């Protein structure tokens, strides 16, 4: 062997290994758009744009999409997880907390690790999980008994298992963790009950706790006086959806949940900081850099746990680093993500509880639009205009895509519970929305995918559905927008016009966000519906 051929062999060997399953460094996660074949975090990159740079599936050929494989979860829970794909291996969660590694090309299993949550684990709205995070060779999962678990990505072996908060005290975890540098950051759900919400960072290697931020300030801390009496101790404010990370400011952003008790604020007078807010935390210290509260003193269960979408846009003629937020409360926001400044806000569905913003961006309440003994018709519905499903932003079209719904509900305070229209007068039906009351009027309640201009928040197009939607949205460089709805259809829409390009009936509700990846040059798009994960790609001979 000559020196040159020897060198070639070494380089070839390195390339061959690199094309296989290499370590997922944080640099790779941060710049995941440079390796569009992979999907390395919940919404693609820590900016949460849920945008795939892949172009094989485009507006001209999406009509040729065809089912490649189905993976059926052995679980009757809602399938809310977005999968990760790393160099041909797909990782997802079988609810509540089993982790599986599948061949991304065939859907066949490499391994399954079962995790039995503690019997005392309680969740408000389903024993669900929204997905994993990865760093190096290690996967991370939050569990419904409020643990953070690290698993070997090659074998599924559990490396460490750390209690984040006590399940006995009604804490749980349903969100995908956020990996930043050498840390795994996760929040606690359970905020419809008497918890005190938390966001905590752990050493990715050892599981050692590094810092903890309480979503309700303690005595002596700024904001504690926004809770009357001792209500701060049990004021809820869970954190149950994916956070975002901005490397330039080293800030992690998380949406926070409603204050508890949900529909009766008499025991917790005040703004109830930091409920229904976005909090910007310094990743190294966990210190609060800024916050913005979407719904002060909420009595309508308007959690702000939507997925923050970070984008760089032209706003009123200037480049701005913004955060886009279609909120459960029916209002859509543009915030400056460096300072937290409120830049713009408007209603994106029919809203009757709020009437604009003051000069500082504080929402203006409409008097009387609170739960009452007789019942108050509130818009949007108690489940919101959107709830937790992840939206999308396409840097190509410059549009912000949100799947949401138009609806209203009658909220009557009877103790702490709103009055439902269904058979149980004591509770609403979380996780299910009943449109039967409105079936005689198709404009009263419907689901819709809309594209918004993020600088004006004006809708550019819409695609309406008869029933509401809890589906997320994916956009792609092929200018295709993927979404779905409660009816069980998976949709491909033209990202510039909203025209329907293709649809598939999957036979079960879509309660998750789509994602895309490629293996051996073939682009796949997946969606969970019912209890299964479906993978689509172009027909073999289609171009």
């Amino acid at each position, binding site marked *: 062997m000559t020196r040159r051929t020897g060198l070639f062999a070494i380089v070839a060997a390195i390339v061959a290994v690199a094309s296989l399953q290499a370590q997922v460094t944080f640099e790779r996660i941060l710049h995941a758009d440079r390796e569009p074949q992979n999907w390395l975090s919940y919404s693609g990159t820590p900016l949460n744009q849920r945008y795939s740079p892949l172009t094989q599936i485009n507006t001209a050929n999406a009509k040729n999409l065809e089912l490649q494989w189905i993976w059926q979860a052995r679980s009757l829970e809602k399938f809310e997880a977005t999968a990760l794909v790393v160099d*041909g291996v797909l990782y997802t969660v079988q609810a509540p907390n089993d982790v599986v590694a599948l061949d991304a*090309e*065939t859907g066949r299993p*490499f391994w399954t690790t079962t995790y039995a949550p503690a019997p005392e684990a309680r969740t408000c709205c389903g024993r669900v999980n929204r997905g994993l995070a990865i760093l190096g060779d290690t996967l991370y999962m939050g569990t419904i008994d409020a643990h953070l678990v690290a698993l*070997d990505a090659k074998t599924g072996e*559990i490396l460490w298992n750390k209690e984040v908060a006590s399940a006995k005290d009604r804490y749980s975890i349903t969100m995908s963790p956020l990996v930043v540098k050498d840390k795994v950051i996760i929040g606690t759900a359970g905020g419809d009950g008497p918890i005190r919400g938390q966001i905590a960072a752990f050493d990715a290697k050892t599981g050692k706790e590094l810092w903890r931020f309480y979503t309700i300030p303690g005595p002596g801390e700024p904001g504690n006086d926004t809770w009357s009496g001792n209500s701060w101790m049990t004021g809820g404010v869970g954190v149950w959806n994916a956070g975002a990370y901005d490397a330039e400011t080293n800030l992690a952003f998380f949406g926070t949940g409603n204050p508890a008790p949900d529909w009766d604020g008499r025991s917790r007078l005040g703004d109830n900081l930091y409920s229904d807010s976005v909090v910007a935390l310094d990743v190294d210290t966990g210190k609060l850099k800024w916050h913005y509260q979407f719904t002060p003193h909420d009595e309508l269960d308007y959690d702000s746990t939507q997925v923050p979408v970070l984008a760089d846009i032209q706003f009123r003629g200037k480049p701005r680093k913004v955060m886009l937020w279609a909120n459960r409360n029916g209002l859509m926001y543009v915030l400056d993500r460096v300072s937290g400044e409120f830049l713009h806000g408007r209603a994106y569905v029919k809203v009757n509880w709020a009437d604009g913003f003051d000069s500082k961006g504080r929402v203006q309440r409409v008097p009387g639009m609170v739960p009452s003994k007789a019942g108050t018709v509130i818009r949007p519905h108690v489940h919101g205009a959107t709830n937790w499903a992840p939206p999308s932003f396409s840097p190509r079209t410059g549009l912000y895509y949100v799947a949401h719904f138009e609806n209203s509900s009658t909220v009557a305070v009877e103790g702490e519970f709103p009055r439902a229209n269904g058979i149980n007068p004591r509770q609403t039906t979380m996780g299910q929305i009943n449109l039967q009351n409105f079936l005689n009027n198709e404009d009263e309640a419907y689901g819709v995918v809309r594209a918004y201009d993020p600088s004006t928040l004006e809708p550019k197009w819409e695609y309406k559905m008869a029933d509401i939607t809890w589906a997320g949205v994916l956009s792609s460089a092929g200018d295709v927008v993927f979404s779905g709805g409660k009816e069980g259809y998976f949709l491909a829409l033209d990202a510039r016009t909203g025209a329907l390009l293709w649809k598939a009936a999957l036979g079960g509700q879509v309660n998750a966000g789509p994602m895309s990846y490629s293996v051996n040059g073939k682009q796949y798009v997946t969606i969970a519906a019912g209890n299964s994960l479906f993978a689509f790609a172009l027909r073999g001979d289609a171009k």
Partner: protein
Amino acid sequence: MGGFVLFALFAFCISHFDLRASAQHETASDIEDGGRVFRQSCANCHGPDGNEIPGIDLGRGIFKTAKSDEDLVRIIQKGVPGTPMPATNMSDEQAKRVVAYLRSTAATRASATAVGDVARGKALFEGKGGCLKCHRANGVGSRIGPDLTRIGQQRRSADLERSLIDPAAEVLPTGRFYRVVTKDGATVTGRLLNIDTYTVQMIDMQEQLRSFSKTNLKESGFIPSPMPSFKSTFNTQELADVVSYLVSLKGRPTP
């Protein structure tokens, strides 16, 4: 009258089949099934050898109160009030299989007479034995062979000793090795993770998760486990030390 005959016939059938069922002896697969249930439901407290609760050694027939198989079945089903032994929802048949498994284990106790030393065993495992070249324990070592981090919770000392002396005697489904030759001539071997009519999934010798479509393969098939016998590598004391170390592997501590 017709109804009575039918009833009598029906009653006869029930008692007849009942007699047959109760007279049946446990088969090897019953015992294997009992072992599986034991490892899943009992070994967490009793240990894989059944001897981790003071005063009880299930594998040697040493019990606190049980005098007969029927007593054992009752205890398995109803638990022991006032102790951590809980009731289970096992059927008679399942509980009997667990008992059959326990009765069978006495014949297959570890033969090593020496008392093992965990620290010495760890040193042999990592040094002279070279076990980490294929196995992983507590995050150290290779993923090619099965991970041994919790092996002490999963396997009896007798099984571990046998695997060290005669690794081919029993290969668990998680320890089977497979070889494929692709149509373009590449040979890949590894530990088999899944196989079906059309595809094969394995972790290869470079610890990569690999999946193959059988239509792209020229050859494929099981190969012997690369696990060598340590019969001549370790003396009796060393063997006991390594087994003791393996028995001590019961998962990682919580951070």
